[in-house]
């Protein structure tokens, strides 16, 4: 009987999951987004080893050369291969995007759930602080925090994470408020479950989808924020490559017609951000039970 039970379990569990993936892949923008994100992820992991050039090795003989057979994306002002730098920069950008959003969710999620679930003073204090932080534009807050913490990629990620946390506090608080009034939460109290158990098994699983969607969309913003901080010298420090830092130096040479130094990292930022945005929108549609 246990074998029959298990196979039945697998079949039944497979239904909603495959439906989710089917919906996600049928959605054209989500499919494009997923492809783009997957592609950049792959490039970030294996890319640097595909190119014969070292992203930080300088060469006086190849300074600012346009794209050629040897250097597909050209070389920069220190003779480094732009393609190699864009590929290693992908790692910095994606890491910054994902880690800073993880920090934001780790800070914002628990605070938002606590505010929404317990209400009262807890809610008042958390919500007022959130509103104060939200009064500051996200990027400006990230830059301010980044300059206070000091220039490094790690600090930039922390700064972006803290700056993005209020968004998640607001979202989880609202979602918790709406799930809290569901009958099944009252049912959970009626079977004597303690608060932490109700939060872990009744609240969080039911607010997970919108948070996932929001996180995907915020990854895109975090990548831009990381690029901006690096552009301003607050993120990735030279000589390690980062798209933002490459843009920052590349912009000095655009007027001399040496476009490749800034265009390629710019295009990389554009497509990564586009990929995450499309994926986020697609996830929202696929996870929405009202969409058929």
């Amino acid at each position, binding site marked *: *009987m246990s074998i*029959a*039970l298990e196979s*039945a*379990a697998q079949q*039944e*569990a497979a239904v*909603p999951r495959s439906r989710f993936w089917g919906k996600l892949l049928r959605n054209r923008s989500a499919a494009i987004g997923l492809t783009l994100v997957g592609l950049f992820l792959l490039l970030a992991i294996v890319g640097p080893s595909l190119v014969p050039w070292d992203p930080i090795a300088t060469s006086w003989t190849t300074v600012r050369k346009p794209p050629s057979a040897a250097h597909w994306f050209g070389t920069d002002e220190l003779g480094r291969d732009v393609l190699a730098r864009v590929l290693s920069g992908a790692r910095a950008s994606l890491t910054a995007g994902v880690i800073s959003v993880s920090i934001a969710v780790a800070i914002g999620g628990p605070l938002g759930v606590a505010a929404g679930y317990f209400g009262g003073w807890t809610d008042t204090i958390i919500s007022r602080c959130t509103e104060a932080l939200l009064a500051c534009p996200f990027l400006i807050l990230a830059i301010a925090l980044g300059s206070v913490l000091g220039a490094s990629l790690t600090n930039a990620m922390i700064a972006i994470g803290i700056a993005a946390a209020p968004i998640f506090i607001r979202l989880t608080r609202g979602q918790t408020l709406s799930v809290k009034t*569901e*009958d*099944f939460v*009252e*049912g*959970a*109290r*009626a*079977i*004597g*479950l*303690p608060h932490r*158990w109700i939060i872990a*098994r*009744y609240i969080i*699983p*039911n607010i*997970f989808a919108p948070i996932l969607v929001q996180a995907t969309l915020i990854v895109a913003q975090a990548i831009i924020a990381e690029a901006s901080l690096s552009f301003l010298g607050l993120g990735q420090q030279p000589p390690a490559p980062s798209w933002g830092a490459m843009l920052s130096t590349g912009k000095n040479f655009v007027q001399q017609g040496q476009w490749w130094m800034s265009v390629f990292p710019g295009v990389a930022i554009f497509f990564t951000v586009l990929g995450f945005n499309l994926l986020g929108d697609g996830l929202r549609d696929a996870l929405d039970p009202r969409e058929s």
Partner: protein
Amino acid sequence: MPATKNTDMPFSSSLAPRPSEAGEPVLRVEGLGVAIGPAERPVTLVEDVSLEIAAGRTLCVVGESGCGKSLTSLAIMGLLATPPLRVASGRVLFEGRDLLTMEPRERADLRGDRMTMIFQEPMTSLNPAFTIGDQIAEVVRRHRDISAEAARATALEMLRRVRIPSPEKRLDEYPHQMSGGMRQRVMIAMALANGPRLLIADEPTTALDVTIQAQILSLVRNLQRETGTALLLITHDLGVVAEVADEVAVMYAGRIVERGPVEAIFDDPQHPYTIGLMGSLPSLAGDQERLVTIPGSVPPPERMPRGCRFSPRCPFAIAGCHTAPPPLAEITPGHWAACIRAPLEAFVGAPAGEAA
């Protein structure tokens, strides 16, 4: 049914309810009041409610929407949304212990174990994120120190007991894959999984269609007979009351106006409100042309009349009805009514409806 039937349960003995002390009702509510608003100016929503249910018996609380039936049941369970609602007075004795003076922790230990509840809306009462097997097992594991496999086996056994077809398969289904009737069966399975002494069912069949209603009711009744659980059934459906009740308490505007054995309430209602309720029941046999209605509507809680709360709508009201709330008085043994004019036959021969 006597509580000695407990031993027939196909559970392990640790899950079987302990027999309560002889003669001691499972639940005794004394003078319960529920209020809302500031302490200086409270608005009383439920006042002076007293009830009693013995093991294996069914008490139906009837009354129209907003009369305080659900508030009473939530207050008993300790699930009132506090604030703004609060228990203002009274005692709730469960197996002889006052729930209202108990530590919240201790009370939570009783909920889902010794006293459980079924809600009105089966479509939204289950957690959509977990399989029903998980959810039934969760109730068991919250209150019993048993392994995940044993809890799962109990869940399967419970699905079988609530007559869910192919329970092995259903165990791993999510709530959205089941119909309303099936979900209500799951709710019943969860409520009975730990062998409670008291089951509170708040309009368990209202959201279901009529054919399913009958099935669910007979299921609850059969399971109750097997387990000797005391059942407090909240309903506004007098057909349901006639079907399952041993005793009936009629509530009006937050108070119990009449209480007694089901036969007495149906055959010889004493309170004019109860008489009106009975008159509003459609009947296939009767030759009445129109259903009798009670004129007017329930006054809002902040504008309750000082005397009998039904007096503004009562065709039998006299001056004395408007001055002080009538006490519940025993008309015949076990049959109580809160009406100073009861028994009405002494005064008039006409039923309430015709006077309207």
